[in-house]
């Protein structure tokens, strides 16, 4: 059988990344995109050369948090991720599809993921933050098959509906020996007990609670204001304590 040529370049381009943090949940609507995007802003502000990759092909939205509307890739034997801020490089399928809908079935999602990962020219990155789509479908399965040594940052809210799905994802990751950085309780109003219990149940790190921030919606698109929110402050504490970059 002839090899898939795309995988060779995919490996070469990912080899330039020192640390990969994949923000996953299994459940939609828990704030993965917010956590990934703000995390990338915090790391880049701290001077780390950071990449942010939006892998939610059905609903890319990191660009909205970053306030990027008109975005074009520079082409150079592939495509160069977009310089969104000092030290921050961003890639998403958004510039290709704009506001069009993206109806893709399993194998097509797989192919789109491989194709996209193999054409991106990442710089030497200290850290690549990946916003994963919800669910445990083709993108997650191909991602863990193809991307070397990602660490998973799991996001959950303090809801029984969310916890039962996130529990399945954690089981899957533990059984597959994947590296779990820990779990973040997101959109917390006063109680984060269910997420803490889940962390304890699987002996994974509870990284911290990120408050529900009513103000966040108002600062969407303004990177400097986002960094001043309570949400960003809570994530900054998590970075300080737990995200040690090689």
């Amino acid at each position, binding site marked *: 059988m*002839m090899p898939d040529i795309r995988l060779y*370049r995919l490996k*070469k381009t990912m080899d330039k990344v020192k640390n990969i943090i994949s923000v996953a949940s299994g459940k939609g609507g828990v704030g993965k995109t917010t956590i990934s995007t703000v995390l990338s802003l915090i790391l880049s502000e701290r001077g780390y050369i950071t990449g942010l990759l939006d892998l939610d092909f059905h609903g890319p939205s990191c660009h909205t948090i970053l306030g990027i509307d008109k975005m074009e890739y520079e082409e150079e034997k592939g*495509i160069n991720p977009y310089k969104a801020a000092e030290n921050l490089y961003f890639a998403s399928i958004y510039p290709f599809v704009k506001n069009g809908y993206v*109806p893709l079935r399993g194998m097509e999602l797989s192919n*789109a993921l491989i*194709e996209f990962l193999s054409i991106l020219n990442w710089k030497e990155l200290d850290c690549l933050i990946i916003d994963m789509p919800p669910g445990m479908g083709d993108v997650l399965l191909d991602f863990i098959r193809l991307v070397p040594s990602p660490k998973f940052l799991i996001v959950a809210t303090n809801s029984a509906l969310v916890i039962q799905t996130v529990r399945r994802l954690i089981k899957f990751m533990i059984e597959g020996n994947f590296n779990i950085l820990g779990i973040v309780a997101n959109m917390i109003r006063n109680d984060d007990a269910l997420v803490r219990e889940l962390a304890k149940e699987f002996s994974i790190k509870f990284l911290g609670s990120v408050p529900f921030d009513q103000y966040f919606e108002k600062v969407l698109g303004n990177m400097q204001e986002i960094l001043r929110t309570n949400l960003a402050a809570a994530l900054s504490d998590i970075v300080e304590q737990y995200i040690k970059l090689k």
Partner: protein
Amino acid sequence: MHEWALAESIIMAVVDLAKRENAKEILEVELLVGELQTLNIEVLEFALNELKRGTMAENAKIKFSKQFPRFKCIACGNVWEIRNLENILSRDEIESIHFIPELSHVFIKCPRCGSNDFQVTEGRGIILKGVVLKK
């Protein structure tokens, strides 16, 4: 245009294959180019000839064959072929598909029922069809 990226992948793939087969040299590389990706074959060929220098594929003959994209609608079963994307898509749309052929689902619809739910059965992108090695 990412023909250079593809050429780089092709050379890496065939050299790896030759090493795994303990071959002394790569004599021929055969590529099937699906036209949905609108690759510029001249640029691809130029890039391959530049990048194969100093590798086991240095003297390899590169053969290309082309394939028009064919589609099968999952909703109504219609089968169709597109010979010229420029007749139905804008330059930007063609460019998006050039980078990620699956984005054809965003811009192309079944001409019979209008569904985006189709399979690309042939001519999606570039495939390494065969490699002739000297052992």
